[in-house]
């Protein structure tokens, strides 16, 4: 545990000593602020339907998805690829820490950074709360949804980072996998036949977020993202182990 913690805190140090972290944070805030303003402007129009603003922030717009699909690979691309490229992986994997520990520690650090990314959006909630009555349930479940999907996306990114030496390649691979996973759910609308439709609906992340944003915590959605998270972390560990035998 102490070793994992040491690895995680080293990783966080690496995050916050690189300019990339600040670029991502700034871009994220700027972008989200703009989207929030758009949503406010839209809802202020008397012709628009009454909706909960935070629900729109949580996956209600394509911006949310675009940003998540782009940003998560950027967060994770460095994690293992850079260690492999620079050779520090050799030091790490010849220390008395297991591959699983390394993967978990890196994953934890990436998640902390992800939470850090989202934390400032609580300001929007505070702003809304000061002007209107807020239904706290959906807000909480919305953040839960963001966390659950974040875990899954980060696990995919960590996995591709374990595969290659080149950070950019790791990011592109993660982006490709994520886009396939995301769009697989969207195909639901084109499918015919209840079985296929049902299966695709299970994979539809947009719908998942829609539910979370409405205050529905569906255990199927949680199982979906958590089980896939586990799978990708397992694959990342195996990728590290396989590197030794080749």
């Amino acid at each position: 545990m102490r070793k994992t913690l040491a690895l995680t805190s080293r990783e966080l140090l690496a995050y916050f000593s690189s300019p990339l972290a600040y670029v991502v944070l700034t871009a994220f805030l700027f972008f989200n602020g703009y989207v929030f303003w758009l949503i406010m402007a839209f809802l202020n129009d008397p012709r628009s339907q009454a909706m909960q603003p935070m629900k729109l922030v949580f996956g209600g717009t394509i911006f949310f998805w675009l940003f998540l699909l782009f940003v998560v690979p950027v967060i994770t691309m460095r994690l293992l690829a850079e260690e492999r490229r620079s050779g520090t992986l050799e030091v790490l994997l010849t220390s008395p820490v297991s591959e699983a520990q390394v993967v978990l520690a890196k994953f934890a650090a990436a998640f902390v950074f992800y939470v850090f990314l989202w934390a400032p959006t609580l300001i929007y909630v505070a702003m809304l709360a000061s002007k209107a009555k807020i239904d706290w349930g959906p807000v909480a479940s919305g953040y839960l949804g963001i966390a659950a999907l974040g875990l899954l996306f980060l696990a995919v990114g960590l996995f591709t980072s374990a595969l290659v030496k080149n950070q950019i390649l790791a990011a592109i691979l993660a982006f490709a996998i994520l886009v396939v996973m995301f769009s697989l759910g969207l195909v639901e609308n084109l499918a015919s036949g209840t079985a296929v439709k049902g299966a695709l609906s299970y994979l539809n992340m947009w719908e998942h977020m829609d539910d979370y944003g409405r205050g529905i915590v569906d255990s199927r959605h949680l199982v979906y993202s958590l089980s896939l998270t586990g799978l990708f972390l397992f694959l990342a560990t195996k990728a590290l182990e396989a590197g030794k035998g080749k």
Partner: protein
Amino acid sequence: MIEVQGLTKRFVDRTAVSDVSFFVPEGEVLGFLGPNGAGKTTTMRMITGFLTPTEGTVRVGGIELNRDSLALRGKIGYLPENVALYPEMRVAEYLHFRAEVEGVARGEVRARLDEVVERTMLGGVRRQLIGTLSKGYRQRVGLAGAMIHKPPVLILDEPTVGLDPRQIVKIRELITQLGRDHTVILSTHILPEVEQVCRRVLIIDAGKIVADGSPEQLRAGLAGAAELHVQLEAPAAEAQEALAGLTGATEVRAEDDGRFTVAVEGGEDLRRAVFSLAVERRWVLLELTQTTPSLEDVFLRLTTRDSAAAVAGEEDAGAEPGGNPGEGSNGGSVDGPGTVPGDGTNPAPEVTHA
């Protein structure tokens, strides 16, 4: 301490290490010598657990790699070839991190940190970012990291590559010191380094061990490689015959001006005999030098896969007194066989043979 049995590593396209076995007793400094691409790094990576052997076993302090890889990794301090460090960390931060990862007890971290910083002379750069350090300092940080958990075994892969001569001397002194309380495997292709630091040498070539022994043994083992250079004022034919008649002389080559080169077998020192011969026949002795083969000769002979003629040619060039700067410590000297040239006490000339 370290027991390697039938270690083999096959990559998809080639066999990097094949059937390597050796044993390193506790407290020994073993020099692991070989040309580039001979399989040194691969072997070390297998011992440290970074690569899984295709065949064979590694045991360190009684722990088998395949059984309990984590426990074995804890016993080894490893400095990989290119000393990979995290540039964004400060020296003390990095060492603290290494201490935690290597499992140094919480209460001891501080004391260990102070000790390794002192031993590797990093006191002045504790607060400095690793990315801003020079290569020599980084090498020392890597070394400090490798010994932070007091491992009984240190494995150092080319620890002096890319350093300037002064730094090389310092790192070698440090390794010699470390050899007193650690078992060390040191890989290198710098020959004087091995002569100074190691009591035993393992030469590996094309993935196989081709020689194993102390530097003296390896040199002595090369029959006929010692050479006696004599210059006499004497009838050439008669002198040649007389020299060939000495015990231990295997071949006499006559050169101009009454110079002779005598190939000497297995550790004989012919200087006394030649002197007596000259006195007896009333020849004037102008020059008398016996050279032992350098480790370089041994190395070249064992690892050169050209024709025998080419090997002989290399030896000629190498044995020319003063003709090859690499000879430095023993070329042209009157050291008898078995003397270690530059036995660590005198900093031998910093000539790299890379």
